[in-house]
């Protein structure tokens, strides 16, 4: 199913920049949590940056994206201002959602990020509805929704496969299959190893790719995105990946062993892309480090912005209810 898509040095740079932004951003979030500057229930996606970057690279601001509880990278990749994302996670007045949403509920309408939700599987029907509206209005906008392998056992997801198929919705369902739902491995939740299999049943186009190979994800997504842009679909792209940290910050991670983590550390998506760039002769370590440094600088700025920002005014409590 994967067609050949031109891979340019530019694309690799772009992806790497996004991925380093996500990585540096979440390292900073983790640090700020450790320093009690950020509180609440925070889920980091370190190790999964390849999917966010690769999918978003196909999209522009008019395209629409949904995500779940592990959404920082998706919002950033979609173009959200890191300072305002950080401010939101830190609960500040300057946050994307004025501090009312927080880590699990990032929304940035200006960049087409229609939002993250904390209820597993709950975002998929919403994405379908948005895609249906695009189809009826023939806007050519693509709708993408990210979700985990754990969501694939949820009724809302399964009902959605049927509806997406029935109505031929221009939506790309992107499953980040990291092998776990909270503390429990996929094998304890289903006998269906691949999430893609579920979609195939409904006649939905699918592909399963190494999620930590951002270029591969980008390539695999291309035909699905192109179809959606023409109002066709749906498609499901399953990205096999791994979260390097616990389910949430504070998780003692007793349910998996060090060896497993090591295997996946060796498959760190940032290293994979840097190695590919070097091997292809697109750019070397110096450029990669420059990209990393620039990302870290941007994140430092974001953190400084967030922490210097005022807290929300208590009067906002009753605003935007309805």
């Amino acid at each position: 199913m994967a067609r050949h898509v031109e891979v340019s040095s530019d694309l690799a740079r772009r992806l790497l920049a996004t991925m380093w932004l996500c990585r540096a951003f979440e390292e900073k979030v983790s640090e700020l949590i450790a320093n009690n500057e950020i509180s609440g229930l925070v889920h980091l996606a370190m190790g999964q940056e390849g999917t966010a970057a690769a999918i978003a690279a196909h999209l522009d601001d008019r395209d629409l994206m949904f995500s779940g509880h592990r959404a920082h990278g998706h919002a950033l990749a979609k173009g959200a201002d890191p300072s305002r994302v950080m401010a939101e996670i830190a609960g500040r007045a300057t946050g994307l959602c004025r501090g009312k949403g927080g880590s699990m509920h990032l929304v940035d309408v200006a960049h087409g990020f229609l939002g993250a939700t904390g209820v597993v599987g709950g975002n998929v029907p919403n994405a379908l509805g948005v895609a249906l509206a695009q189809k009826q209005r023939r806007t050519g906008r693509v709708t993408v929704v990210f979700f985990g392998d754990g969501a694939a056992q949820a009724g809302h997801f399964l009902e959605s496969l049927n509806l997406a198929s029935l109505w031929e919705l221009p939506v790309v369902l992107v499953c980040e299959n990291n092998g776990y739902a909270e503390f429990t491995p996929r094998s304890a939740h289903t006998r269906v190893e691949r999430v893609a299999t579920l979609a195939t049943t409904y006649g939905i186009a699918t592909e399963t790719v190494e999620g930590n190979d951002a270029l591969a994800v980008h390539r695999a997504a291309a035909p699905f995105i192109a179809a959606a842009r023409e109002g066709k679909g749906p498609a499901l792209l399953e990205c096999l990946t791994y979260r390097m940290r616990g389910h949430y910050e504070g998780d003692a991670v007793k349910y998996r062993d060090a060896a497993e983590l090591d295997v996946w550390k060796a498959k760190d998506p940032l290293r994979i892309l840097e190695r590919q760039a070097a091997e292809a002769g697109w750019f070397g370590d110096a450029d990669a480090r420059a990209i990393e440094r620039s990302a870290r600088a941007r994140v430092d700025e974001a953190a400084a912005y967030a922490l210097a920002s005022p807290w929300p005014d208590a009067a906002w409590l009753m605003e935007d209810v309805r």
Partner: protein
Amino acid sequence: MSEMTPIRAINQALHDEMTRDGDVVVIGEDVAEGGPYGATRGLVDDFGRDRVRDTPISEGTVMGVAIGLALAGLRPVVEIMFIDFITLALDQLANQAAKARYMSGGQLRVPLVVRTQGGAGVRSGAQHSQSLEAWLAHVPGLAVAIPATAADAAGLLIAAIRTDDPVVLVENKAMYYRREEVPDPLAPVPLGTAAVRRSGRDVTVVATSRLVAESLAAADALAGEGIDVEVIDPRTIQPLDEETIVSSVARTGRCVIAHEAVRAFGVGAEIAAVVQERALDRLQAPVLRVGAPFAPVPTSAPLEDAYLVGREQVAAAVREAMRW
């Protein structure tokens, strides 16, 4: 003015609004076939299957799809065939639709309308007869309308469609086929405004849905006993028009609340709490509540008849209030 049943008025209101605004779409099970009660009858002929969209039996996801349509700027009217099945869609309704605007700091709006119906009396059993509106009124972000007349069934629906935030309309199946007067053309009824259905000096009866007509009948009977009853229909329970209710009770000094739902933890509890909070010093009797006993709805006719409250229970409560 013309004559119409509530179900016909709803159908007409949908037709009018879909004609007026191309963004209004109807979605739900069997809606293209008109639905089991005929609320959407004929719409597909005029507006096609894209705007009158049949769905499989997937209430939760269909609600979610409707929310997505609303997020994208359409104005979906989703039908949940029986309020009993809204239990399958409450994650989407309470966690997504009701909170999206707030959680996004005002970036998102969800102009969603949910039409559903509840109520007993037609021997359909415990899973097709509930009155769950109190649940919805407890969810910040939702408005909840509960029409008692054909004009309001249409008018509140029209207002809901023109609202930029989610509104749930809870109709009552037992009232669908009564002929009543409605304005011609149908007109919006603002959310949050109670209607005084009958003026009276002695007791204020606050009644919703089917109990409005029952309370009016009780009032007629009580008039013969020299008791002058005021009947107020809140029309929306969220927001609740506290002013109209409280100022009436401040005058009459007595209040009876009547609804079909189970009494315990029902809408009447909130109204009673508000009335005594705001008008205690005027109360000459406790605020009394008329509602269903704490049991599922039985199917057998005599049991269901014993279960349902109506004019007699309202009249008895009014008489009790008068004894203080």
